C-alpha cells in the first residue's frame, strides 16, 4: 500500500475544498472497495478525505412522493428503511441481493455508484489494463472474461460495472446529486456511468473534484409488479453474472409501462427505452417478452468465456418479466427461481 495522509472534514463545502486542494486526493466512505484497491496498489491517493462525518445520512421525502437518499446512507439502512421497502421494493431487493450483511452495513449509496469493475486484470498492477493504465492494452478480450461485458464494450475495454443497486436505480429513473468546485448539479443515473469508448479509464461522468451528496428516486407505483433476478456462481455473496431489474404497470390486462435494466453484462446498467416503448400496449405473454429480450440484447457480443451470457441474459429477461407481470418478485432469501 502506498503512503497517504488523511483529513476528516465535517461539511460538504470543506470536503469539496479538501478534494480540490491536493492533486491525487480521494474520498473514502465505507471503504469496502477503496481499501481493497489500496491493498492491491490499484488506488494510489495522495490523501484520503474521510467523508463519514458529513451530514449525508438522511433519507428524505421529496415533494413528488419519492425519496432522496443521502450519499452516506448505508446499503443496509437503505434496504431496510420502511419507506424504501414500501415505495421501492425493487431497490430494496436489489441491494439485498448484493454483497453480504457485513458489507452492506459499511457500504454507502455514493460508494456503491463509484465502485470499480471486478475485472481480474484491473486488480493486478503487474499486467496491462487500459482502465488502470490507459494505453497498455486489454488482456481480458482474449483472456479470462467470464464475468465481463457483452454489451457496450469497445476494443479498449470489456469491463462490467458490478453494482446491483445501480441496476434497480436505473430502472427507477434515479437522479444523482453532486456538488463540486463549480457548484451543484444533477445527473440522471442512466447518464452517470459511461461506456468505455477510447477512454476506459473514465467509469462515469463525474467531474474532477465532485462529491456525490445524494441519490433521488422519483415516485413510481409498480406495486408488486417488479422483480430483481440475479444469477451468479453461488446463491449468495457473489457478483452477478446476469441480473435483471424489471418493473411493469398493467392496464386492463395489457402492459401499460415497462422498465427493464440489466446488470452484469455491460459497463453500465443497460436499458433500451425504445424497446420498452414498443412493448407498451402489448399483451403480457412470453412471445412479447422474447421479442423484447432480443431488442434489449441487440448487438451483444461474447468474448469466449462469457459467451454463455447471451443465452442466459435472454432467458433471465423472459423470466424476470414473467415474475414482474405475475406480481411474484424473486425472493432474496429463498433463491429458488419462481
Amino acid at each position: 500500500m502506498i503512503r497517504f495522509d488523511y483529513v476528516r472534514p465535517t461539511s460538504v463545502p470543506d470536503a469539496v475544498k479538501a478534494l480540490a486542494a491536493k492533486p491525487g486526493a480521494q474520498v473514502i466512505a465505507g471503504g469496502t472497495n477503496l481499501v481493497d484497491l489500496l491493498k492491491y496498489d490499484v488506488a494510489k491517493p495522495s490523501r484520503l478525505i474521510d467523508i463519514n462525518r458529513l451530514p449525508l445520512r438522511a433519507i428524505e421525502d421529496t415533494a413528488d412522493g419519492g425519496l432522496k437518499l443521502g450519499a452516506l446512507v448505508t446499503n443496509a439502512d437503505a434496504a431496510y428503511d420502511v419507506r424504501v421497502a414500501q415505495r421501492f421494493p425493487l431497490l430494496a431487493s436489489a441491494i439485498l441481493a448484493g454483497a453480504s450483511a457485513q458489507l452492506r452495513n459499511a457500504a454507502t449509496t455514493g460508494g456503491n455508484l463509484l465502485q470499480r469493475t471486478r475485472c481480474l486484470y484491473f486488480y493486478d498492477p503487474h499486467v496491462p489494463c487500459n482502465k488502470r493504465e490507459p494505453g497498455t492494452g486489454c488482456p481480458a478480450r482474449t483472456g479470462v472474461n467470464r464475468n465481463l461485458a457483452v454489451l457496450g464494450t469497445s476494443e479498449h475495454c470489456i469491463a462490467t460495472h458490478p453494482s446491483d443497486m445501480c441496476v434497480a436505480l436505473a430502472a427507477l429513473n434515479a437522479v444523482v446529486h453532486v456538488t463540486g468546485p463549480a457548484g451543484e448539479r444533477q445527473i440522471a443515473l442512466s447518464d452517470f456511468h459511461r461506456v468505455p469508448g477510447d477512454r476506459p479509464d473514465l467509469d462515469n461522468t463525474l467531474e474532477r473534484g465532485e462529491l456525490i451528496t445524494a441519490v433521488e428516486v422519483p415516485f413510481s407505483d409498480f406495486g408488486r409488479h417488479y422483480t430483481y433476478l440475479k444469477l451468479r456462481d453461488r446463491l449468495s455473496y457473489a457478483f452477478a453474472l446476469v441480473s435483471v431489474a424489471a418493473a411493469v404497470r398493467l392496464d386492463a390486462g395489457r402492459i401499460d409501462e415497462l422498465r427493464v435494466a440489466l446488470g452484469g453484462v455491460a459497463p453500465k446498467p443497460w436499458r433500451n427505452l425504445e424497446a420498452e416503448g414498443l412493448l407498451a400496449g402489448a399483451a403480457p405473454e412470453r412471445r412479447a417478452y422474447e421479442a423484447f429480450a432480443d431488442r434489449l440484447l441487440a448487438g451483444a457480443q461474447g468474448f469466449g468465456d462469457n459467451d454463455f451470457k447471451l443465452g442466459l441474459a435472454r432467458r433471465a429477461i423472459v423470466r424476470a418479466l414473467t415474475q414482474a407481470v405475475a406480481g411474484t418478485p424473486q425472493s432474496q432469501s429463498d433463491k429458488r427461481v419462481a
Partner: protein
Amino acid sequence: MLQRTDASQRGELYRVKLAINGAPHDVEVAPWVTLLDLLREGLGLTGTKKGCDHGQCGACTVLLDGMRVNACLLLAVTCDDRAITTIEGVASLEPTAGGGLHPLQDAFMDHDAFQCGYCTPGQICSAVGLIAEGHAHSRDEVRELMSGNLCRCGAYSNIADAVWQVLRDGTAGEGGR
C-alpha cells in the same frame, strides 16, 4: 503499543480513540492501518482472524457500534470515537452470561458448529449482529444473512442450527453439555 514503520516510510500518525470491548484505548496509527491489523498486531487481540484480507470471507467480522462489519476493509483512523466488540468481548454483552459464555458461544459448542475453528470468531460476531438487526425470521433467512461468513470446513448446517436456535429460543437450548 502500535508498532511503527521505519522512519523512511513513516508518514504522519493519527491519534484515534476507541472503546474496545468496553475499555477505552487511545492509540496512534498510520492512516493505512486497517482495524483488523490494529486489533491483532497493535493491541494483541488475536481472536479476530485474518482470512482473505479482502472482504471475501468474513473471518475478520467485528461489531462497530453494534453493527457487524469486515475489519479488514476498515481503516482504523476512520473508527475514531467508536465502540468495537470483538470475540474477546461478546460474552460480556450478555448480562445473563454471569461471567460465562454468550448463548451463541454455548450454542456453537452444543451444535458442533465448527471443525478447525478459524472462521468461528467471525461467525459468532456476525451472528450477534444478525440477531441485533432483527431481519432473520427463519432458518433460510439465517443462512442467507450469514452468507458473509465462509467456513472452509463446511460446518454450515450446524452453524445455521446454532444461530437459528439462539435466535428462536434466546438460549443455547437443551443440547447442554
